[in-house]
């Protein structure tokens, strides 16, 4: 599935929720399904700064694709991480860098993207793209 197909799938899933509580309950469900991050990456080195909750993020390359893993001590944040991973995991660095994450706006999470909200969504997106950029540069070498 392409990156945008995955975004569209999530938009479709969220379209049935008309209430914030339903959205949060769904994020809680997603957080439970997020594969565990390797404990050796759950250190300060992989901690994303600037969030009210802690987020650990790690990325690696598998062939030409970026593999992400993440965890958070807050469940909603972890659910959001799970969504981002679902969209970006296994994609090429160029696709990660060149595609806009429009699903965040469509499912109502865009307001959480504002830098003043300290839930780490913005920081997570930034860090995921930074990883992609680094791997892109490595591949070009």
């Amino acid at each position: 599935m392409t990156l945008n197909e995955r975004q569209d799938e999530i938009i479709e899933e969220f379209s049935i929720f008309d209430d914030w509580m339903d959205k949060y309950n769904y994020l809680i469900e997603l957080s439970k399904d997020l594969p565990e991050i390797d404990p050796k990456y759950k250190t300060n080195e992989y901690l994303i700064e600037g969030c009210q909750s802690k987020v650990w993020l790690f990325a690696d390359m598998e062939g030409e694709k970026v593999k992400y893993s993440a965890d958070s001590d807050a469940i909603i944040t972890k659910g959001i991480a799970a969504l981002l991973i679902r969209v970006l995991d296994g994609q090429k660095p160029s696709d990660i860098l060149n595609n806009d994450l429009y699903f965040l706006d469509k499912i109502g999470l865009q307001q959480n993207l504002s830098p003043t909200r300290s839930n780490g969504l913005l920081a997570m997106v930034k860090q995921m793209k930074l990883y992609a950029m680094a791997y892109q540069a490595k591949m070009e070498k």
Partner: protein
Amino acid sequence: MSLDIQKIRNDFPILSQEVYKKPLVYFDNGATTQKPQAVIDEEIRIYSKENSNIHRGVHYLSEQLTQRYEDARKVVQQFIHAGHDHEVIFTSGTTESINTIAFSFGEQFISEGDEIIISTLEHHANIVPWQMLCERKKAILKVIPINDNGELLLDEYENLISQKTKIISVNYASNALGTVNDIKKIIEIAHQQDIPVLIDGAQIVQHGEVDVQELDCDFFVFSGHKIYGPNGIGVLYGKEKWLNKMPPFMTGGEMIKKVTFEKTTFNELPFKFEAGTPNYVAAIGLATAINYVQNIGLEAIAEYEKDLLDYATEKLKSIEGLKIIGTAQEKVSVISFNLENIHHFDAGMVIDKMGIAVRTGHHCAEPLMKRFNIEGTIRASFSFYNTKEEIDKLYDAILIVKQMFG
């Protein structure tokens, strides 16, 4: 005396709105309080009819507004029972007040090896300016510890005082926990060694009477926006004997008496510490807010808010897995808590969607959070316009949070 809460609520236009299609419950009064119509009207009236820069013009509007600005100073003076109106300096808020004192007092009185005492309960605004001063002057910062209830250990405080102690700066009430400190005792002990004391009053003036002369504190600071007044205005009270010996913090404007390119002489108090065009609109707005609060009555407010705090404490305590952080004997109407195995951020996100405004996080008091070995708390802070019914809504919201994340 009991308060007519419905009438009071009608004075605050913001309270009647809905958020997320639910009636707004505003429990973030520790961060900022809402403004009564009288304050909003005052600001509009000044900008519509009275605006003019003060102290400089000889014209009608300037003269009128200068008078009102100085009247506002007298309102503050009476409010905190300062000995003189020139001991009341308008600043942009508590943070600027503390920075002004830390810089100016520090320039004059702090040298290498001197010691400054603060407490574990302090807001970053009463930590960092002293830290910076210590770095500049190679001075030492000492911290009064607390017990598990969030109360200062006064015996330890006495032990911290030495020949080298030059100033003590503590809050009257803690923004994060609500603890009300035994300020009178702290000042008494300091004064036995002639050490001046700064009281951060940001979290007390909206909850009860303060008399700086009776307390005998050397400096007292607070913010307008936390006592139903406008943003961008605050107060620095200082005893004349200290302020006269301290150099200006910022320079320019009305604070100057005479300037040549060779030398500048500074104006007298209070203007010496009011550089640039002061926020005269907000200062007058603050006086209006103080009048509003005084009309309701600080005693009645304190009594009503204590009732709210007691009600909330009992109610929240009954929730399994809820832990109140800060259980001091004396508290202002602030209740900080955590839910077992639930991140305060998750709780806050859900409580918000129920239309309830609480604050989550470290409340700009990271060292205090560290003392309790936590990352943060959920904080509800009550005002006299809040009700028990609203506390019931918070209670219900917490039960939902528990159900969702438990």
